[in-house]
C-alpha cells in the first residue's frame, strides 16, 4: 500500500485582485499563482483555467506514480476515472455555491445537522434551532429589499452619469487573497 503522503497533493492558490480605472471605466484584473506543495512547482495565471490545468496535471502525475506497476490498460482506465472525478469536482463545485445562494435555508439545515453532531453544549450556545424557523417568506422579504435597493442604486447611477463627464484618470487598488490549502488525498 502506498504511503498517505505519496497519495496526497496539496495546492496553495494566491489571487491578487487589481481594480483600476482606465479611460473613465472601472476594470478588474485577477492575477494568481498556484503552488504544488509536495513538488514545490508553481504556476502564475491570469485565467483560472491555467490553474485548473496545472492542478489536473499534478493529480494525473499522482495517479500515474501510484499505478506505475499496473498494466498500461489498467493504468489508462484509472487515469480516465481520475480525470472524470476531477471533471465532476470542477463542474459540481460552483453548483454547490449557487445552491447555497439560491436556498440558504437548506444549507443552514445542513450546517445544523453537522453542528448538532458535535453535541449539546454547542447547541445551547449557538441557539441554531431558531435559524431553522426562518421561512421562505423571510428570504423573499430580504430578496425584495435587495431588489429595491438595487433599483435605487441604478437610479442614482443614472443621475451621476448624467451630471459627470468621464475623466481620464487612472487609479489602482490591489487586494490579495490566498485560498486555503486544498488537499486532495487519494485513498487506495
Amino acid at each position: 500500500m502506498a504511503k498517505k503522503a505519496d497519495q496526497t497533493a496539496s495546492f496553495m492558490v494566491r489571487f491578487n485582485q487589481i481594480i483600476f480605472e482606465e479611460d473613465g471605466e472601472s476594470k478588474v484584473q485577477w492575477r494568481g499563482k498556484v503552488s504544488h506543495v509536495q513538488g514545490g512547482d508553481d504556476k502564475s495565471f491570469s485565467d483560472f483555467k491555467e490553474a485548473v490545468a496545472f492542478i489536473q496535471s499534478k493529480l494525473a502525475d499522482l495517479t500515474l506514480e501510484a499505478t506505475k506497476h499496473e498494466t498500461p490498460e489498467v493504468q489508462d482506465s484509472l487515469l480516465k476515472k481520475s480525470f472524470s472525478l476531477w471533471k465532476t469536482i470542477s463542474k459540481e463545485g460552483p453548483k454547490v455555491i449557487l445552491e447555497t445562494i439560491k436556498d440558504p435555508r437548506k444549507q443552514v439545515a445542513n450546517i445544523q445537522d453537522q453542528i448538532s453532531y458535535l453535541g449539546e453544549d454547542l447547541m445551547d450556545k449557538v441557539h441554531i434551532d431558531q435559524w431553522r424557523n426562518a421561512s421562505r417568506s423571510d428570504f423573499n422579504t430580504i430578496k425584495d429589499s435587495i431588489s429595491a435597493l438595487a433599483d435605487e442604486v441604478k437610479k442614482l447611477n443614472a443621475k451621476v452619469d448624467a451630471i459627470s463627464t468621464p475623466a481620464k484618470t487612472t487609479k489602482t487598488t490591489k487586494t490579495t487573497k490566498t485560498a486555503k490549502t486544498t488537499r486532495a488525498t487519494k485513498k487506495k
Partner: protein
Amino acid sequence: MNPLSDRLIELKQFQKDAIIRIQTLGQFHLWIHNEKIDSKKWGRDKTVQLLQYLISNRQRHALHKEKIMDHLWEDGDDRDFKVALHGVNKVLEPERPSRTEPSYVIRQGISYQLDLEKVWIDVEALEQYIIIGNEAFGENQAIAKEAYKEAIALYRGVYLPNRVFEDWSSEEREKIQILILGAYVILAEILLNENPLESIRLAQCAIAIDNTWEDAYRLQMQAYIKKGNRPQAIKAYQKCADVLEKEYGIEPLPATKNLLKEIENI
C-alpha cells in the same frame, strides 16, 4: 504616551526578556536563556516537527491531539504522540519536576497549544509589528516606519525552509510571504522622498520574493527618478513588462504605463 508606541516598546522588550525564543524564518533555531539549543538535543525529527506544527497553528487555539497526529504521522498512535510531546517539553523545560504541568505547551484535556505570552516566536512578532505598522500608517508615520523596519529585520528568509514540502506548514509560509511583501512595498513608499536608494533596495527585496509584484517595479521607477536616474527607471519598467508578459501574458497596469510616459517626457 501613544498606545501604538507602547505596544512597539513592549514587543521589543518581549524579544529581549523571553526565556524561550524561536526563529523559524530562514532557519529553525531555539534559544533558552539566550543559549542556542543544539539540534542534537531534539533527538527524533518528529519532536521538532511537533513544535513546528504547534508554531504553524499557534493562532488556532487548543489543537486536538487527533488532528495533530493526522497531520504528522502516517499511522501514528498515542505512544508516538506522547514520545514527541515529551521530547518537546524536555527540550523546553529540562529542569521541570515530574508530575508538574508544562509551562510552555499548554494542555487542556486532549488539546494542546503554545503559550504565546511566554514563548517569543519570530513569525508572531513579525505579524504583530506589521499590525502596528498598518494601524499607525497614515496617522503616525514615524511609528509605522519603525514597526515595518522591525518586521523586515525579522524576515531572514522563507518560513521553515526544511518543511516546504509539508502541507501543514504551507499556510503560514504563504501568510508570512504576503505580509512581508506588503511591508517592503509600504516602507519603500514611506521612504520614497526621504531615502530613494533604500526604497529601491526594499522594492528589490519584494521583487526577489515575487517577481510579478508590479507595485514594487513602480516604486523603483519613482525612486530612480528621484535619484535622477532616468535610464534605470525605464529599465525597471522594461523588466516589469517582460516579467508580466512571460508569467501572465499581460501588459503592465495603466498606472505603470502612465508613469513610464511621465518619465519619458522628462
